[in-house]
Structures are given as structure tokens and as C-alpha cells.
């Protein structure tokens, strides 16, 4: 992986956690019946920090749980042949409680889907809310976070890494490029040095999706401006920045893959190219 930008530094992470903690208390009108549950691995220290922040200004110790979703994944046999199964520790009865589920990055929504299934095996919570440090878009399930630290627009070929002292020895959120090691790596299909229009379009819009109503008002103006921009303009804007990130030297195998993927993705890209054109019309209607 090739690191290309630090999205959040230590101070920003600290402030963001504090803000999320305040939002949680405000939204729930206090802390009665709340439990903070982190999704392993990095959701757990984040949950602990949120609980610590709430303790700081509310003076109440919230129970903190840890959820390991390995056994609930729908892609268990595809992604990781022998994933390490960690412990789940909830500690309290979930019946009637409001669970604040915490994770580091919200991406496809599959992890959260698995976590929700697992949580309801522990009881019947009154409500489950979702808090994430980073929302990078590209949802595959109808899942939306209630509390978002930062929206980071990404392409499928990028990764967002949250590094915490507790688990990684450093504290920052990093945006990186995925470098293709093997010719058959399917993750590179869409990436051609030139992002497909939908990668910049919906992802960017999702990134600007405000966390609350107040934020929606604040963000209304820039959102409208973004909607007026034509997809062609957006693509043109995106070109120079992404073009820089292409590796200068290519192996023959990689070159072969890229030429293969180009033809493969052409129809897909064409199909997707129509999507952003429709979007402004819809919003006007």
C-alpha cells in the first residue's frame, strides 16, 4: 500500500471522539440505559475513548463491550481462510438498552450488518445506533451511521487506515493506494489512472452528507454547488490528482492485466457514466 495523505492526525481524532461523545449524549438526552460496544479490533479502543469522554463531562461510567464479528461474516470463506476468532464481551444484558455500536471505518456496511446480527443474539436492545470515526462511502447495504467523525471520499482502489496507539502504536487516519501485486487482483479493475465518474460523484456526495440537521443547513450551499458541476468537469478535475499516483514502471504482467481490465471495465464504466447525469435531474424534481 502506498500512503498518500494523512486524513486525520492525533489532535483531530481526539476532538472528533469528543464531538461524537457529545452528540451521543445530546441525541439520547442523557446516558440512561446506554452501552457502548466496539467492533473488534479498532472499534474497541474507540468505544472505550467515547465512554471515557462521556464520563468526563457527564460523570457517568457507561458499560463498554467488545464485539467480534468473525463468525457472522457473510464472506468468511472468501476473504480470510482462517481468521482469528476473537472474544465477544458484552458484560450486561442488552434487553431494553440503547447500544451505541462503534467502528473505525464504515465502508460496504457488511461488518455492521454482521455486528447487528450478532448483537441481537445477545438480547433485544431498544435501539442500536452506529458511530464511526471515518465514513468512506461505497455502501453495499442500506446502512447509515448515526454519528460520523469524518466523511472521506475515496475510490475503490484506496484504503482508509485508522491507526491507534492501543493497536498500532501510532495515532492517525491515513488514505492509501492499493498497489496490485498479482496480475489477477480484481480490485484493480476499475482503476485505470482515471477514476470512473461514479467513483468521484456519489462517493463525494456521500462524503458531504451531513451528520445532523444543523450540519445539513451549514453544508447546504456547497452541496448545491457540487450538484451543479457536470460529471465531465468532475472527471477532468479528478484526472490530474489520480494520474500522479500511477506507478511509473509496470511489469509486463501488470500491463497485460491493465489492458485486460480496460476492455473488461469499459462497458461497466459506460453504464455507470450515465448515473451522475441523472442525479441532478432527480434532485431538481
Amino acid at each position, binding site marked *: 500500500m502506498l500512503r498518500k495523505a494523512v486524513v486525520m492526525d492525533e489532535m483531530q481524532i481526539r476532538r472528533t471522539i469528543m464531538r461524537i461523545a457529545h452528540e451521543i449524549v445530546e441525541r439520547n438526552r442523557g446516558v440512561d440505559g446506554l452501552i457502548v460496544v466496539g467492533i473488534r479490533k479498532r472499534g474497541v479502543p474507540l468505544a472505550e475513548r467515547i465512554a471515557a469522554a462521556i464520563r468526563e463531562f457527564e460523570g457517568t461510567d457507561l458499560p463498554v463491550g467488545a464485539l467480534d464479528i468473525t*463468525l457472522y461474516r457473510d464472506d468468511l*470463506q472468501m476473504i480470510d*481462510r*482462517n*481468521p*482469528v476468532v476473537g472474544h*465477544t464481551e458484552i458484560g450486561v444484558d442488552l434487553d431494553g438498552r440503547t447500544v451505541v455500536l462503534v467502528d473505525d471505518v464504515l465502508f460496504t456496511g457488511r461488518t455492521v450488518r454482521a455486528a447487528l*446480527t450478532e448483537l441481537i*443474539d445477545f438480547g433485544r436492545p431498544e435501539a442500536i445506533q452506529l458511530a464511526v470515526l471515518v465514513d468512506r462511502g461505497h455502501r453495499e447495504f442500506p446502512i447509515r451511521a448515526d454519528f460520523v467523525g469524518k466523511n472521506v471520499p475515496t475510490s475503490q482502489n484506496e484504503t482508509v487506515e485508522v491507526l491507534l496507539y492501543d493497536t498500532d502504536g501510532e495515532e492517525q487516519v491515513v488514505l492509501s493506494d492499493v498497489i496490485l501485486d498479482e496480475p489477477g487482483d480484481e480490485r484493480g479493475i476499475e482503476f485505470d489512472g482515471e477514476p470512473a465518474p461514479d467513483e468521484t460523484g456519489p462517493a463525494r456526495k456521500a462524503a458531504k452528507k451531513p451528520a445532523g440537521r444543523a450540519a445539513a443547513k451549514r453544508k447546504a450551499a456547497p452541496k448545491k454547488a457540487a450538484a451543479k458541476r457536470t460529471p465531465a468537469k468532475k472527471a477532468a478535475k479528478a484526472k490530474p490528482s489520480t494520474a500522479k499516483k500511477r506507478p511509473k514502471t509496470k511489469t509486463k504482467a501488470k500491463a497485460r492485466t491493465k489492458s485486460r481490465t480496460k476492455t473488461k471495465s469499459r462497458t461497466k464504466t459506460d453504464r455507470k457514466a450515465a448515473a451522475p447525469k441523472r442525479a441532478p435531474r432527480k434532485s431538481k424534481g
Partner: protein
Amino acid sequence: MQFKRKDLLGLEYLTAEEINLILETAGSFKEVLDRKVKKVPALRGVTVANVFYEPSTRTRMSFELAEKRLSADVINFSKATSSVAKGETLRDTVENIQAMKVDIVVMRHGSSGAHRFMSEFLDASIVNAGDGQHEHPTQALLDMLTLRQRWGTFTGKKVTIIGDIMHSRVARSNIWGLTKLGAQVTLCGPPTMMPVDIEKLGEGGVSVEYDLRKAVAEADAINILRIQLERQDARLLPSSREYFEVFGVGPEALRAAPEHCLVMHPGPMNRGVEISQEIADGDRAVILEQVTNGVAARMAVLFLIAGGKIEEDDIQ
């Protein structure tokens, strides 16, 4: 650490790292057994056949429960109610089960090495649930899981196995497993039930002692084996009563052991033959804990085997 085995034939074939991975995974699965909903979808879509050529209560129930806790589809087969009674061979039976697209076969068989033979021509994974007098790997794994939960480590720990060593597959699996993880094993039993050169098994940490009191004197745990009268071709004991007098573990024998010594038994227990009533129900006994751990250990094995098979497919 990846578990790349297609089958679990015995602990003799596993490395210390692989055994540790199974035990670690089993620790996580034990937590699942304490939940309100004691079921996870990890093996959804996987079909497991329990093929038991020998009678079994605990092992079979434990495997079936483990499979159901992992959401696998389960089919059961027993010798008495199958075509084996009509003369069908082992290979034919298991190949037919495979033709029904079963993914994992959990098998118990009276012949040592039956699983190894089957694994050579079956695509499905085979899990050994006991083969003759050879190995009973999942029993040893649950024994080791119980000890690991108490001790944390096996290094420098001493385990004494008492009883019918010759006919015991549990003893052999325990010898291989415990010595690989750094424990010392002492075997104790009547000389007629002690195989020649048994101390050559394991990784150098095996000794034989015929005096029960000396055998338990430094033991951190004792594992009492059942006297398997059904496996004995000739009467190797004068009487059960005499056996209890010399090798039966009662309060007096246990006084020779350290205070912290744990008492284990793979079951079913013959009370008054190899273990006394007081010891079986005493506070040092972890026998029921072993039964609970059995489900967790078997869940771990099935989970890792299911993943291991995919790894092998990918390599091909």
C-alpha cells in the same frame, strides 16, 4: 498462523503452533456457549456427516452439538442401522456419503488407521472421532483446553495418565499433544496394560511409573482412564476390585498428590473401578468442565477444518 490441514487425523501429525491455534480458537468458541442464542452462522451451508462405527454417547452428542452451534447441516449414521449390517464396506459407505456432497465426515471406527486410509481417496475432510487404539484427537484437545484455562501454559507442567494405557487412544493423543506443548507426561497402570516402549512416543517428555503414589507425587493434573474391558482379548486383570486397590484413584491415593492437582476423566466413568465416588464428585475434579470444553474444542476443529479445505483448493 493459518490452519492448512484438510483433515484432523490425530495430534501426532500436528505442530505445536497448530495445536495452540485450535486451543485459542476453542477459547473463543467457549464464550459462544454462554450466550443467550448459542449459535453462530459460521458454517452455514456446510454439511457434516457423523459416521459412527462404534457406540458413543458423549463424543457423538458433543460433535453434533458443535456442528449445530456452527449452523452446519448434520446427518447421522450408525453402523447398527445402516447398510453396513448388510455387508457394505467402509470405503463404499463413505464414498456414498461423499457422493451426497458432504463437506466434512466425522468418523469413529474400531480399526486404527481407518481415517488415514479414507483420507487418501476422499475429497471431503475427515475428522477423527476415535480410531481403534490409535488416537482420539478431539478428546485430547478438550483435555488440553481444560488445563490451559487453568494454567495458561503447559511448560514445566506434569500430567499423570493412569489406567489402561494399552487400549487407550485418549492416552496416545494426550501424549503427543501435551509433550509438543512442553508438558511432561507420566504413565501409570498395570504392566499388562502398558505397551512396550510407550515412553518413546511424544517428544521426550514421557516416563512410566508403576507405583500409583509415586506417579501422582508431583502431578499438576491426573487423567484417569476408563478400564476398557470391551477391547481386551484376554483378561488382563484379576478383578476390578483388585485393580481399584492398586490403581484406583481414591482419597488416599490423591493425598499423595500436591494440593493443586486437578482430576480429569474422559468418561464414561466406572465408579469404584478406576475412580472413587468422592474423587469423581470432589472439588478437584474438572470432569464436567471437560465435557463443556468438548463442544468448544470440536467447534474450533470444524471451523478451522472448513477453512483449511478452502486453502487447499486455492493452492490447486
